[in-house]
């Protein structure tokens, strides 16, 4: 069985897993009773995993958020939503596969789900552009949000991007304008909206799907104005200082809750979302249903007013 662990700080877990495998093999080969020893090792593995994940440093969380086996938008669409119909294109230029979206059902209710989509392997990543949208991706997203609002459906966005794509065509076709328009229009969307950071919340490219009535973060996701690598390159001219930058940027779910930017943290299984995607999905599903039920009781005008108030309160300054 392929190991779920591939990150540097998970090496001790990998080592224990190997010992367990060895023990099992020896047990079968020599037909000896290994039950007691096996249980001991399993317990040790669980304890060590819990220990490591309890004390994740900010940069380690960044690594978990970027884990190649972490569940992506389409995974959640197939596990916690039903009746998904993908809708494509911005109706202007092209269909950007770095953003996916369409009608789906959550606990029987029609909702519009839109999210960044990363690729699972090199081939898919080329197609999905590593989850970095061009302007068309954002324009498709806005089109679908408005479609959802038109028919009174709650809009649920799943955020997982290193950032909006920095390229020639993206700039030519108005990356700034696309982001700016989404951020503005989402603030006035006359329907309940919930945004969830499921992996990487990379700057403006994340925020352009992230203005909502409720903002949630999965426990090991991160949300930041700039990547730790980018921050380190600017401040210390040295991308290898990313650990220091991750520390300084306060980008973990706990940090964002403390800064009053997000409303709730959705718990992940010990070891991260990727070790048990189903359990992660269930926790997310429960949170989404709870928030959706609350928000659907509020009139759209009131939602919009409260949303404006929520954002008006964000920030820290003094007034002498």
């Amino acid at each position, binding site marked *: 069985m392929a190991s779920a662990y591939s990150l540097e700080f998970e090496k001790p877990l990998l080592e224990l897993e190997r010992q367990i495998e060895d023990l099992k093999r020896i047990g079968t080969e020599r037909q000896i009773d290994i039950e007691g020893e096996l249980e001991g090792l399993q317990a040790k593995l669980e304890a060590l995993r819990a220990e490591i994940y309890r004390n994740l440093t900010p940069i380690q969380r960044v690594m978990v958020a970027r884990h190649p086996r972490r569940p992506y938008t389409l995974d959640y669409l197939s596990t916690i939503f039903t009746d998904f119909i993908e809708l494509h294109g911005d109706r202007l230029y092209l269909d950007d596969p770095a953003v996916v979206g369409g009608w789906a059902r959550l606990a029987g209710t029609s909702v519009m789900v839109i999210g960044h989509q990363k690729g699972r392997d090199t081939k898919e990543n080329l197609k999905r552009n590593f989850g970095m949208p061009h302007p068309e991706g954002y324009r498709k997203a806005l089109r679908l949000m408005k479609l959802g609002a038109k028919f009174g459906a709650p809009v649920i966005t799943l955020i997982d991007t290193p950032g909006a794509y920095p390229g020639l065509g993206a700039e030519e076709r108005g990356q700034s304008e696309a982001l700016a328009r989404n951020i*503005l229009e989402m603030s006035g969307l006359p329907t309940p909206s919930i945004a969830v950071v499921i992996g990487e919340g990379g700057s403006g490219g994340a925020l352009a799907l992230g203005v909502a009535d409720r903002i949630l973060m999965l426990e090991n996701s991160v949300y*930041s104005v700039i990547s730790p690598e980018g921050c380190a390159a600017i401040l210390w001219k040295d991308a290898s200082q990313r650990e220091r930058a991750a520390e300084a940027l306060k980008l973990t779910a706990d940090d*964002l809750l403390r*800064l009053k930017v997000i409303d709730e943290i959705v718990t992940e299984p010990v070891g991260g979302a990727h070790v048990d995607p189903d359990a992660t999905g269930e926790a997310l599903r429960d949170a989404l249903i709870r928030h959706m039920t609350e928000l659907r009781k509020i009139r759209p005008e009131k939602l919009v007013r409260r949303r404006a108030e929520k954002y008006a309160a964000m920030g820290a*300054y003094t007034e002498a």
Partner: protein
Amino acid sequence: MAVMAWFKKERKPRTSQRERLEIPPDAWEKCDGCGHIDLREKFEKALNVCPECGRHRRIGAEGYIELLTDPGTWRELWANLRSTDPLRFEHYPERLVSARKKGGEADGIYTGTARLDGLPFNLGVMNFSFMGGSMGSVVGEKIARLARRSHEKKIPLVLVSASGGARMQEGVLSLMQMAKTSAAIALLNRDCIPYISILTDPTTGGVSASFAMQGDVILAEPGALIGFAGQRVIKQTIGQDLPEGFQTAEFLLEHGQIDDVVPRASLRDTTARLLRHMKGQRPQAEHAELS
């Protein structure tokens, strides 16, 4: 002395030998665009636009306030807002102290109210000399308040941008200022209050990806650098050199991203005329004839 070295190597200034001898060397300035050397006074009189090649040099926020308001009408608002250090980001407090020394107390933007050709309006001008005009909580709050004031008083909003983007030292709170300012601009959209966005050199990152690109009309100064991603990042990502003129005001005009490129000398007049159009008012001269 560097200034004297220019005289030997570069074009001759259009002043007589005698004039040159009488004028102190530090009164001369050189255009970065074409190398033209002239008296600083002459550059300043031409709004810091090179008389030879038309290159627009950066001018301070005070310059735009003077340019875009009727004399004596500017009243600054919320000058007492100060940045704090919510993330305890290393060296941020020290950086704020030196930024205040260099860029004044307004933080990254001056906000206030004034008149233009007699028309009351709210004006915000970003202060590039304060940490590159970066948007943190103070900048976001001042813009949001100004937009809300425009909404309450039903008077137009004009914002002059000059910024490298979000202020890293306030982390995700800076990012959220993009949403905060946009939500305030959305109010103006909803109730048809005019908003003119003027982009100057440079307008990039989180500022270009929020209020700067949300104007009913978006104008830019010639040659201004405008874009979302930094050129170094784009170059690294695509692994090739960027075309000539990439991310300039003219490039954005060509690609349909802004309404027009307006030379500084026409900025005041264009802004006033646009405001009158969007307020449904006749030009002043015509107005006078009728009454």
